[in-house]
């Protein structure tokens, strides 16, 4: 499993990493709802919340560079949509609404970032199952999470092969073709693998349901 970039910071050991995952999940949901219900232009409230979330991120030892990177990826679509408020009224007002929407998304996004980077996926899944996420869905998620590492490893192997066969940097068109055939091959191999896994599971007594775990 080389795909550790999936949850690099979630396996730390700070106060927040040790906190009960259900508490964390409910806390984040509370913050999200609170932020959504905060009226437009209530800057002191947004400021306080931002300070709180940032402090939580720092205490959880999540690097600021990583946070800024993620926010940088989120910002363009958020700004684009927020700016449609002033655009809708011909740049005469609407700026406060745009700023509020941007603030709301950044705040809730940072809170979510804090949650997923202090809680490993399987812990979070367990917490959600206890809070009433349907069993079938949890089963499928567990399967998918396990397969993800397998598929990522397969993809990494195929890319290594692709790179070692390509001597020069390919052009745009060639890159599209090679990437598409890479994905097509990945699809074929994954489906073959799913067939094999299914056969192996059936021979071990799989009936379509996870056995009850006590």
């Amino acid at each position, binding site marked *: 499993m080389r795909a550790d970039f999936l949850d690099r910071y979630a396996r730390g050991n700070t106060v927040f990493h040790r906190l009960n995952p259900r508490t964390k999940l409910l806390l984040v949901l509370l913050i999200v709802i609170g*932020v959504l219900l905060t009226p437009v232009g209530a800057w002191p409230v947004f400021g306080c919340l931002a300070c709180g979330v940032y402090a939580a991120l720092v205490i959880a030892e999540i690097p600021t560079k990583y946070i800024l990177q993620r926010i940088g990826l989120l910002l363009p679509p958020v700004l684009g949509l927020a700016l449609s408020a002033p655009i809708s009224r*011909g740049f005469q007002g609407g700026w406060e609404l745009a700023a509020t929407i941007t603030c709301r998304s950044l705040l809730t996004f940072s809170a*979510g970032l804090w949650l997923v980077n202090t809680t490993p996926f399987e812990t979070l899944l367990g917490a959600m199952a206890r809070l009433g996420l349907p069993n079938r869905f949890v089963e499928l998620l567990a399967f998918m999470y396990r397969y993800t590492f397998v598929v990522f490893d397969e993809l990494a192997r195929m890319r290594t092969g692709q790179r070692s066969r390509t001597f020069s940097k390919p052009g745009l068109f060639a*890159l599209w073709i090679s990437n598409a055939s890479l994905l097509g091959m990945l*699809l074929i191999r994954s489906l073959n693998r799913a067939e094999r896994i299914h056969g192996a599971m059936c021979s071990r007594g799989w009936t379509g349901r996870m056995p009850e775990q006590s």
Partner: protein
Amino acid sequence: MHIPDGFLSPAVCVGTGTIAAGTLAVAFRKLDATLASRTVPLTGMVASLIFAGQMVNFPIGLPVSGHLIGGTLAAILLGPWGGCVALALVLFVQMALFSDGGWLAYGANVFNMGVVGSLGGYALYQAVRSRIAGPRGVLLGGMLAGWGSVMAAAACFCLEFWLSHPAGEFDLRKIWMLMASFHSLIGVGEALITGMILSVVLVHRPELVAAQITSTNPARIGRFVWTGVVAALIVAAFAAPFASEYGDGLEAVAEEAGFASHATESTGPLLNDYALPLPGTDRESPLWGKVATAMAGLLGTTVVLLLGWGLCQTLPRPLTPREDVHAG
């Protein structure tokens, strides 16, 4: 495409979440009815495949690059219900692992991309495939469905965003114009990527999608219903800008309810006219915007059809009897 929290009001989140949960419940029952023991590993694998596939970037010569969204691909491989579940899984993992897409907006995301994207995309795919036989139908249907599902998801988002701001801070038509222009590009990319992947599979392992070709051919009534859904989607997406009664109707309601003066006070010129504040646009005529939106739709469809035709030429052609004679 992933809606973060902060855009939609809690009411809209709850509404879309309820629809999404209901659809997923139906999907699970449908899947249980088919082949329960095989469904779980296969759906899980396709979901992680799409998740991994989104990591492969398709550069477009700009700092931004495109990637697969995969709703249609999942629906083609697993059928509409399986595709819907697979997309819900992908969206969940992206939320719980990367914080991509909001926690409260998860229902809306599943609704847009899973329910509308996958089920609607599959409807479009079926409609094309029942008219064009063989691998070409699969390819063209998949590409058109990829494009259509992106546009439909964008349209749903516009509607949700607009409903989330009930005081009328946003003009539905302008948001749709903004979204339609960007997403017709994204949709063409999605169609092209889906088509290229499908053509690879059709060349090397046609039976992976061919199983679908024979097994789930809907009955005549089913086909009729699917076609109807597709027609409704297309009309809703691209004819909506021309149906200007709705916006005016809202104004009329506002006036009747007696808060029109208040509304105009607080929101400025929004409710009075909706001309685009672009240079060269006549503020008196809102037609420009409508034409632009419809153009985005038509242009996108044409480009996708042309690309699909091109990709079809790369498929190995089955020998017709006449060619057989020539070859012999």
